[in-house]
Each structure stands twice: as C-alpha cells, then as structure tokens.
C-alpha cells in the first residue's frame, strides 16, 4: 500500500503544477460558462485547449516526458525496475491513475462546458477515452525491436481508435460495439504493457535486426562508409544539427502523411483527391511542434543545458546558431520535396488533376492569370515560409537552456490568442466593442512593430547580425510588395500590409538566438 502511495506521489507531486494547470483550465472554462454560456461553436473550439491539456495529462501518466518514443527500448523508466514492487503494480497503478484522471477531466469538461452550450456527446466516448489512455501507455512502455517503429504504430493505432466512431452508421450499434471494444482494450492493453515491462525489466529487449541481416548470417554492425572530411567546421556543425534535429522532422512529417494516406484509403474514392490538400498542411503543423523543441541544445529534446562536448566546440555562438538554422532550412526544403512529390503522386492516382485544372481555369477566368499565379505563389510561399518560420522562430527558447522560459513563452505568446478568442465571442453581439477594437488595431500593431524592431536593434547592436538583417529586409520588402499588389486596399490598406509583414517575419527572436546560446553556454 505504501508503495502504491509513493508511486502515486511521484505523478501528483512531481507534476503538481502542470496537473493543477490542466485542472485550472477546466475550472476556468467551467466558471466562464457558468457566468456567460458559450455558443456551441465556441464550446467546440474551446475543446482544442482541453485536448491539449488532456494530452499533457496522458503524457504525465505514461511517463511520456522521460521516454524516448523513437527508441526501440521500452519507454518505462528503468529507475523503477529496481523497486521491490511486482510488475503488475508498476504497470497497473499508473494505468488506473491515468484513466481515472483523463475520464474525470472529460466528465468535468463535458458536464460543465459542453452540455451547458448545447453540445451533446455520446456516452461511449468515456470508455473509449479510457481505452485510448491505456493503449497509449501500453505502446509507450512496450519494447519494440526497431527504432521509430513505436511512433508509426502509435500513430496508426491511436488514429484508428479516435476515428472508430466513423465506421458505424447506426448510433445504437455504434455505442454498443465501441463500448465493448473499449472494455476489451483496457485489459488487453494492461496485459501487453505488463508483458512488455516485465521483459524490459529483465533486460530482454527484442532486437528485430533480421531485416538488415543477410539470410543465415550473423548480425553485424554496419561498417559505415569512409567519407571525405568535412569542408569546414560550419559544414560539420550543420551535419550535426541535421542529424540531431533536422532529419527527424522530415521523418515525422513523412510518418504523419503516411498515416493520413492510410486513413484516406478508407474514404470514398471521390473524396480521396481532397486529401492532397490536407497533406500540404502537415509540414507547417508538425513544424509548430518541432520548432518548439528544435532549439534544445542537447541530444534529447528535453535537455536544456548544453552538453560539455557541444559547449567545448571551438565555434562561436553565432556560427552554432547559423548551423542550426541551416540544418532546419535544409529539413524544411527536404520535407517539402517529399510532401510535394507524394501529393502529386496521390492526386494523380486519385484522378484529381482534372478537377484541379478546372479549378485553376475558373480562378484564372475570375481574377486574371497574373493575379491567380500571384495568389498561388503566395500560397506556396506561405506554406513553405511558414514551415521554415515555425522551425526557426523559437530557437532562442531552447538555446537559452532555462526550463522556466518554455512555459513563460507559451503563456506570453498565447495571451494575444486568448484575447482574440474572447473578442471573437462578442464579435457579432457587441458592434460597439468590435468598432473600438478595429479602431485600436493599427495602434496595437504599430506598438508591436516598434517593440519588435527595438528589440532586434538592441540584439544587432550588441552582437552584430548585418547579414540576417539584410536578408530579412529583402524578404520583407518582397513579401510586402507582393501582398500590396494582391490584396485589395479596401480590405487591408498598404500600411497595414507592411506592418503585418514586419510582424510576421521573424527578426528579433532570430537575432536573440546567439545571445540566448551564450547565456546557456557561459553560465
């Protein structure tokens, strides 16, 4: 009993602030709803925040923040193996707590936020949520014989579970069937997890190296190629960053696109071509997550301090940051090559080019060829540039090597979104408030631009980054010119476009990166 209390304390004590934050999010929305009920759309959109909090809670109870999902070994913390506790308790207790916490959160959200807003949810979601938590835990803790296999299996299994409702037409049948499936999955997940952790506990991690081994031959480490020396220290450092952070991003995007493609195969043939558009949004979406960790200087994305090995490279901070940016730029370019090639093949296979051609002709007819080409180029530049921006804009947070900066930055960057969301709730119902906001918008944007340029100027003055500033100015001028040409002045005036571009293109945070690294490297 005391062992169970101690194991529980590790979750609730260690992650008390995060779990309290998740509870506070639910309580905050519930209080807001009690005071002024949300619309059905508002409640549904707010559920995105809930999903983020729920993902965090599942991560906590799956030991997800200390596991390396891409590793072949079990993600269960080895430090717990030496405790004098049976494996069923090591596995079952976190599973029970994870399922209870997730279900309690959902019931609170459903009862206090969704239902008052008139959003009805099926009852089978509760057991299915428990099953999703248990399966996620089992997959994190199960040793796989090959690196990265877990990521693919998790993506497929969890997507299949989350989309399970779509496979039924009759609601009653759906409820009965999926409740039964969930009820069966929970004990199955426990047994799988128990078996996997028991195996890992006795050091019996599987090695599925058979596909690299010649038939009947011995398993040998690949000798690797003898390669020419790097041309320069910068080339070596770029390679290092590419291996550490760059190619993983390409693989992650490819895996997500592959899973989406697998899901799309179950769709009606007529709508399969539409998934081509969905694929195009995967790189920037994954980049938003990847970029948050890309600045992390260590081998693991969770490591904050620079390893001594990395810190003692005879390279100055600006060169180290430049290498990181180069590697991520390379990753963005490689990713888009892969995604574009796959999407083109997918659309061709789904006979989508004919429809795409008709859409293009209609667009040319409506807007003129030059404008249509301009919008297409802007759309493409927006996706590719947005991907790059998401990858590099927040490098400074990871490079600074202070764990407290991550939540601080998240909160600060979320504040405008929260404010806009609050304004959006009253957008139609309070015209006077809307007019006040629209009148203040130019001042708010101008103030933000001033703060950004002052901050960037400060960093450039202290560290020097004339090439970055030059490249930024060229990109900003080009983008602003294109937008001024394409966007009707009645919609957004030219000065508004320019201010928006200045805000959009990263400068202050990029120029802050070397200083952030120095703060970490020379403590």
């Amino acid at each position, binding site marked *: 009993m005391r062992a169970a209390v101690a194991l529980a304390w590790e979750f609730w004590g260690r992650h008390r602030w995060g779990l309290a934050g998740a509870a506070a999010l639910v309580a905050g929305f519930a209080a807001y709803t009690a005071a002024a009920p949300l619309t059905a759309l508002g409640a549904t959109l707010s559920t995105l925040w809930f999903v983020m909090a729920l993902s965090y809670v599942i991560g906590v109870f799956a030991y997800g923040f200390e596991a390396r999902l891409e590793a072949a070994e079990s993600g269960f913390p080895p430090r717990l193996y030496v405790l004098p506790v049976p494996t069923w308790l090591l596995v079952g207790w976190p599973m029970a707590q994870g399922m209870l916490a997730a279900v309690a959160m959902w019931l609170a959200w459903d009862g206090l936020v969704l239902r008052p807003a008139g959003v009805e949810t099926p009852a089978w979601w509760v057991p299915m949520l428990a099953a999703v938590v248990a399966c996620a835990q089992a997959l994190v803790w199960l040793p796989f014989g090959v690196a990265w296999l877990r990521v693919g299996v998790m993506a497929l299994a969890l997507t299949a579970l989350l989309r399970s409702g779509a496979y039924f037409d009759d609601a009653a049948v759906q409820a009965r069937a999926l409740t039964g499936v969930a009820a069966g999955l929970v004990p199955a997940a426990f047994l799988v997890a128990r078996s996997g952790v028991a195996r890992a506990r006795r050091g019996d991690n599987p090695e599925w190296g058979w596909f690299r081994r010649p038939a009947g031959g011995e398993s040998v*480490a690949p000798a*690797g190629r*003898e*390669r020419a020396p790097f041309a320069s*220290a910068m080339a070596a450092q770029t390679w290092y960053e590419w291996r550490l952070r760059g190619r993983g991003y390409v693989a992650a995007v490819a895996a997500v696109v592959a899973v989406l493609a697998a899901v799309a195969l179950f769709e009606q043939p007529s709508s399969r071509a539409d998934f081509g558009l969905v694929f195009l949004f995967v790189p920037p979406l994954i980049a938003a997550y990847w970029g948050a960790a890309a600045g992390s200087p260590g*081998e693991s994305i969770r490591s904050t301090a620079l390893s*001594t090995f990395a*810190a003692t490279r*005879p390279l100055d901070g600006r060169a180290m940051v430049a290498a990181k940016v180069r590697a991520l730029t390379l990753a963005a370019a490689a990713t888009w090559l892969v995604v574009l090639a796959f999407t083109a093949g997918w659309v061709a296979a789904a006979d989508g080019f004919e429809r795409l051609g008709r859409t293009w002709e209609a667009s040319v007819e409506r807007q003129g060829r030059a404008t249509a080409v301009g919008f297409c180029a802007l759309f493409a530049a927006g996706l590719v540039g947005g991907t790059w921006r998401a990858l590099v804009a927040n490098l400074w947070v990871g490079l600074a090597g202070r764990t407290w900066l991550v939540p601080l930055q998240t909160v600060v960057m979320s504040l405008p979104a929260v404010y806009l969301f609050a304004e959006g709730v009253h957008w139609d119902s309070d015209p006077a408030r809307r007019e006040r906001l629209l009148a203040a918008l130019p001042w708010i944007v101008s103030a933000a631009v001033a703060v950004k340029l002052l901050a960037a100027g400060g960093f450039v003055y202290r560290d020097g980054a004339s090439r970055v500033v030059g490249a930024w100015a060229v990109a900003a001028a080009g983008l602003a010119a294109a937008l001024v040409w394409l966007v009707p002045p009645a919609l957004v005036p030219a000065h508004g476009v320019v201010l928006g571009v200045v805000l959009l293109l990263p400068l202050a945070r990029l120029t802050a990166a070397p200083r952030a690294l120095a703060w970490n490297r*020379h403590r």
Partner: protein
Amino acid sequence: MVAVPSEFSGNVIEVAGLTRRFGRKAALADVRLAVPRGGVFGLVGVNGAGKTTLLKHVLGLLRAKAGTVRVFGRDPAADPAGVLGRVGYLSEEPDLPGWMRVRELLRYTRAFYPSWDEAFAEELRAAFGLDPAARVKHLSKGQRARTGLVLALAHRPDLLVLDEPSSGLDPIVRRDILAAVIRTVADEGRTVLFSSHLLHEVERVADRVALIDRGRVVFSGGLDDIKGTHHRLTLRFPGPLAAPPPLAGALAWDGAGAEWAALCSGALDELRGAAAGCGAQVVAHRVPSLDEIFVARVGEKATAPVEG
C-alpha cells in the same frame, strides 16, 4: 579587447580574484592561480572542493562574475572559438553524442581543428582498440574515456585539460591516460592541467600542484618545493602524553603514549628546534607523500589555509 599579455609572461592560464557562488555556497573564493607554459599542473582537492568549477571557468563554460580568467591571454567566455581551438578536454564522464559512430565522431571533431593529425588519431584509435563502426552509446565506460582521449589529443592541443579523467576507470585505461599526459608534454611547450583526487597519479606526472579546499587555493607550487617544505617527523617524548603538545608548523598528529608522528610544514632545522623546545627527540624523518600532505592540509586537523 580580450588580449592581455599573459602569454608573454609565460603563463598559459592566469586566474585572478575569481569568486563564484551558487546560491549561498561559495564554490570558489578569491582564487588566484597561474599555470606556466610547459609541464603538468595538478589540481587536487576533495570532491566538491571547486576543481571542476575552476576548470569550467578555464574552458569558458562558466563566465567569471568576479575576478578574471585568461587562457592564452584571452577571456574564454568572450572568445570561445579562439581559446577552445587550442585546448583538448577530457572529463570524468565524457558526454559524447551517443548516436554517433566512432568514425563519425572523429570525422566531425576533425573539422573544428586545423591542426588535427589524422595519422595520430588513427594510431591512437587503433592502439585503444576502438571499433570505428561502433556507436558511442554502446561503448563501455573505459572505451568512452579512450574515445574522449583521442578527441582531446589528436589535434595536438597547446593545453590539455583533464578533469578527473581516470575516476572509476580500470588500471589499464588509467595507464593509457597517464601515458597520454606524458606523451603530450613530451612535445615541447605543451601544457597539461590535470585535476584529480587520485593523488598518487598526480604525484607521478605533475611538475606543479595546487590544492583547492572549500573553494580556496590552499597551496600552490612546484611538487618538489611542496615536498621539500613538508616533513613527517617521528617524535619521542620523555613520558606518555594524552595529546600532543603545540608545535609550530605541525599540520597533523598521529600516535599515542610517548611516541607521536607529526606532519609539519617548514624548514627542517626550525622544526627540529621546535621539537626540542617541546622536550621531544626526533627519532625519524621522511618526506611525506602528496597523499599525506593533502590529508593533513584538508583533514579536520588542518590549520587555517595558507597561500603557498
């Protein structure tokens, strides 16, 4: 504005008035140290004495908040590339990137050092039995230490910094490390800064030694000078004593009854005179080991710190 003429003064490292606090604890307190060019400089002290903190300042991994640190006349935190390009470093737990293969690690590291000697690197790799295709994370602790040693030596650094390099390693690896130290200083003008609490190793290879205790340099000087000013005297008193009498220069006592051994600091003649003044006869004298001096200096019976 980082160049100061310390290279012209013959010192590779100059530390002056360096103080560093972590919270309320002073990790370093007004440390002054000069490491001359050429030879092996041993930095000794118990765990937590401040050796690693001092070495991190030398490497620029910690910025001097009070006092100054100059390596080759430069501030290592302000000019890391200029300093680290001439330094080879090996720590107790070399945190090498585990995902790299040994061959990749050598190829990667080579790019940073124009002076990299590929033939020497290959010679060391072969001598240490390192498989170029092996991943670093699959190497044993001793093999990782050897890999780190190859990386630290192959560019023939002007300054080799070793932070507790042989702690927890088997005698074969420790021998390799000591051989590397000797080999490095065989090249004229190269310097080794060697931190350890394995004093017999330091004693074997060091020309100069500094003892750090609770963040302060207790003494610093040539190993011969230090040993020349410390003596272990065996004293015989006329009758049994419950405790040894006060003796000028005595750092530590050991014994019982009428015969006591004192580890003393000072000139031998003066110590003999002081012993006679206490009514004792010096029946034996020998030069103490560095280990004994260390224990006497930092043990509970040690006297107040003295700048050596």
